[in-house]
């Protein structure tokens, strides 16, 4: 686990409405695994989006977003700066355990910041978490599940598994 200090200062969970109202909107295009890899907005999944977690990394605020109607999650990055070596990643593990996999968002160089980007979706039923991370290094291997007091030096930040 990352140091507690970092967890407290680097990660902020936005206070959101406890019980999101269910807005009237068209049925989404996909559900659960059928949403895997789909675009959240194009699939109609942003209509009932709710924020589950937000982390503040060196390059971006990265949010874990969820649609109940779609049974899917995605990450939304409020990018503060472009980079060739940092990425926002949405990691996932199969519901009964397995090897983690990820989607990635690149931090593009733009004239103005911040800008907001969304990743493609993952089945909500999986274990998921988001990171602002240096290359591919921020994996559970560097964030073992018990307090380690150690971390890589890159400053990568991840939310807790959800």
């Amino acid at each position: 686990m990352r140091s507690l200090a970092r967890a407290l200062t680097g990660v902020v969970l936005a206070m959101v409405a406890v019980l999101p109202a269910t807005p009237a909107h068209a049925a989404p295009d996909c559900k659960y695994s059928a949403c895997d890899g789909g675009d959240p907005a194009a699939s109609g999944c942003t209509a009932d989006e709710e924020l589950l977690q937000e982390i503040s990394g060196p390059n971006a605020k990265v949010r874990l977003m969820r649609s109940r109607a779609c049974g899917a999650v995605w990450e939304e990055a409020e990018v503060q700066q472009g980079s060739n070596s940092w990425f926002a990643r949405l990691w996932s593990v199969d519901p009964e355990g397995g090897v983690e996999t990820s989607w990635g968002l690149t931090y593009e160089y733009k004239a103005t910041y911040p800008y907001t980007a969304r990743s493609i979706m993952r089945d909500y039923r999986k274990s998921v978490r988001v990171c602002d991370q240096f290359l591919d290094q921020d994996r559970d291997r560097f964030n073992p599940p018990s307090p380690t007091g150690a971390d890589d030096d890159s400053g990568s930040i991840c939310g807790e598994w959800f």
Partner: protein
Amino acid sequence: MARHPFRTPIRRSRRILTTGALTAAVLATTALPQAGAQPTPAPSGPNAVAGADAAVPSPDGNLGKGWRTSTDQLITSAGDETGFHIYRAQENKAFAWDTLSTLTAPLPEGGSWSGNLCVTGSGRYAVAVYAPTAAANRAEGVDAGGYAAVVDTTTGQARQIAGRVSLAYFAPACGAGERVLLSRYSGPEGRTTEVIAVDAETAKVTSTVRSEQQITNLAPSAQGDFGVADGSVVRIGSDGRTEKVAAPAGRVFTLNAAPDGGLDLLSAKEQRAVAEHWTPNGLTGLGDAPLDRLQLFRLGDGRNALVGETGGLKKGAEAPVALPAEKPVAALSQQGHLAAEDIQPAWVTRAVNFGAGMEADVPQVTARVRAMHSGARLTGTVTTNPSAPRLLTDAAGGAEQAPAAAAKAQTAQSLQSTALGDISSWGDVTGGPATANPAAEPNWSTPKCAVKRNDPNNQAMQPTPAMVQWAVDRAVTNSLDIQRPKDYLGTGQPAYSIQAMFPEPGIGPNKQKGLVPAQVLLGLVAQESNLSQATWHAVAGDAGNPLMGVYYGNDNLLRTAADAAANRTTPVAINYSKGDCGYGIAQITDGMAAADKTTWTPAQKTAIATDYAANIAAALQILENKWEIVRAAGLLPNGGDPRFIENWYLALWTYNSGFYQPGGDPSGYYGLGYRNNPSNPIYPSNRQGFLRASYGDAAKPANWPYQEKVLGWAERPQNDYTGKMAYVQPNFGYIHSLNLPSNYSLFCGPTNHCTPGTGCPALNSSCWYPGPAVSWIDNASDLNASTQKLAYSASDPEPAMVARYPKPDCTLPSGWDAANTSVVYTQFYPWKNAYGCNGDQEKGGKFTIRTGDNYSHAVYLAQIDLHQFGAGYGGRMYFTHVYSNNTGTQPQYYQYLTQAPQVPINISHRVVATWSPDLKVSGNRIFVHLPTHGAQVPNLSYLIYSGCGSNGLVPTVTKLDQSQTKTAGQGWFQLGDARMILCSGARVQVSNLVDGTDFSGPDIAFDAIAFTP
């Protein structure tokens, strides 16, 4: 409840026993069925009851006046589900037993331990070869499935010496000094021998020699290492070559070093045990006795003792000490003052469906001993001391590797793990362990077997013994036309009729049905599984994973703390390629690999794995097929009438080891394999019929070929957990037992290059038995052979389930506000259970499990000890065991870090469960459901993430005592006592790595959690 698994309550759901082909073996020596051959005489002697811990009462009279100053001691052993225990009984304490040491490792699927023991010449060390009892049911297990450890007989300190050693009856072999020999066999018939010499003092392997001969009956002596090969006594050279030194009178079953540098030996000649003494000048005959009435034991002073009917033996300086005894002896004290005739763990009398329940939680052993001074025979109870020194077995084999080799191997493993750990391809999608050289890698991730573990579609229900007998009786009478409904046990399968799905093929030229004796099939399922369709964790009425043979290809043994401490990152614990896919009560293996699409349909595979009656019907098909193979080969014995149980001897032999068809092998040889040939010297040539002397035979399953074990169980049924016979005995002929061959050379002749004295030296396809047909019952009839006895008629319905525990809860407590309650089940499809419970996970939230470290092989390893189980809210939950949360530096987690992280040494066993509710209201009380059984951890930490604000990341830790279910039963238990404000993102998390526990602790249940106003 204490956490130590060997202290106070044993993990209840781990206490399932085993026998059977999977384990083979459990039972015990008490309560032999009345109607057997060779009835056991009543205990004799002045005292029948021993004192505490089996101490000999009235020691002045029973042991003789000098007992207080005697240094004699008995060192012996017994296995149970908590490990293989070494006991010591010292004469100066009136031979009261204490527990010297326990050798063990976690067995994820349950089961018992068994093994053999010898004491070195000095008496300072005992060397044990031990293994999960199940290992003896596979040829590879007998050949190389054991672990070896040395135990200090004063302190009990144990050190592991080697892994992958033979479980054969003659190993380990001790001699005059501290040198001990072990063996290891390889090749299809166990032809190649490795003789492993061990120095007990250093607990190191000192040499390993390899021979292309089968060498048995090892004996280390001052004159060199000896053994038996091709029926002769041989000296084993340092290059593995053997030099014949003597031709004994018969087939050797004991060979011991003698104090003069020679050898003492016993061999079987016809039905006599012949004692001989060998020196370089030749063999000297010492006399003989009936085959089952003479045994040879080593004493502590280097001499040997001949025990039994010794009256006719020669006396002389070179002769072993003669100790008269009325009954066979299991172990003898170092000076021969005490003989242990029988040693049985308390649980072994009740093999079937033992498991959880009200039985004593403390492992006990019943010992029947004989004080040689007075002749008194005494029976006492010994409580195994859970605080005795304990050795956690290293599946990789311990210290066998020489230091240089070990260092080299470690380096190779580190390199390998780096490659394996680096699973991320740099792109948008990553995942799946990549490997530099897939061909060289064990298969970690793709199960070989068709029906997957922990799949809610594949839950088997554990039957009662009555249900098993019913299914067998109806199957063998071709009347198992029982309809199973659609979605039986939540499998999602269409409805089916059992014997329509698995029709009886019939046997003989007319394919006649209804000819297989019920007891043949009952003996088979007893041997294969202890009448268990579901995992041994499950007792009657429990659903769980199907009982699976070697699903992970790992002999079901977990990697241990020793592996973890040594930073082994590529443990040997999974290699799916080596799985054998045996399923259910008859361990149906053929056609059960995922790749096999032709033998069974998917629906048949599911039925075989989940439905005990379907499994029995499939076994009947296979058994009749084996009969037909034997019939086609012209090998049916005793006239070939299938009504006689004895006549299934060869079909059962074939059931286990197959029949090599003519033209099928380039060598041109064909016939029955040599592995189960009763003349194979891997089995003791003086053995009595399986279970005839004692149910304790079941704890030495390596000593009998398969068909002898099955027919033993047919003759003497297993007992259920109440101690009653689990099924009925056959109709015996006038000898009141099965009429089985006592001549173990019956299948040994010129056609398979086998001679009664030497066996089949080639140990290759030339040893296969092609014929001719043999008979051991003349004019077989109901008078001299045995027939089936049925307990159920063709119209009897399936007996009602008599479950050991109440059914799982399916409904919420009546006082709850159900509309505003979110129940998070432990599966997405809560209706997939065996109890008809319903639920809707979409309305409740999600449940996830993460295993290991989420990226390396540890992901898969942690699944081994994770079990779906038919208990808990909604009828399906998971349980695993708790492991120590201790951390250590593990280089494999160090790759890109500036300092080595402290990582849990048991990360390969880590299971983290997370319940994420879809809340109905913000103010919630959190209730954890706990099951009737499978929940034992006291003081377990539940991490509650409120999901609210920045504190959403920092959990509140709340403790809950899962073990309270032992008295409180199943139910909902509140986490804390307050109503909590929870937000989106709220969740509860539990890990099985806990502070302060020992290596492997009690059961931890992952059951439903409810969030309710």
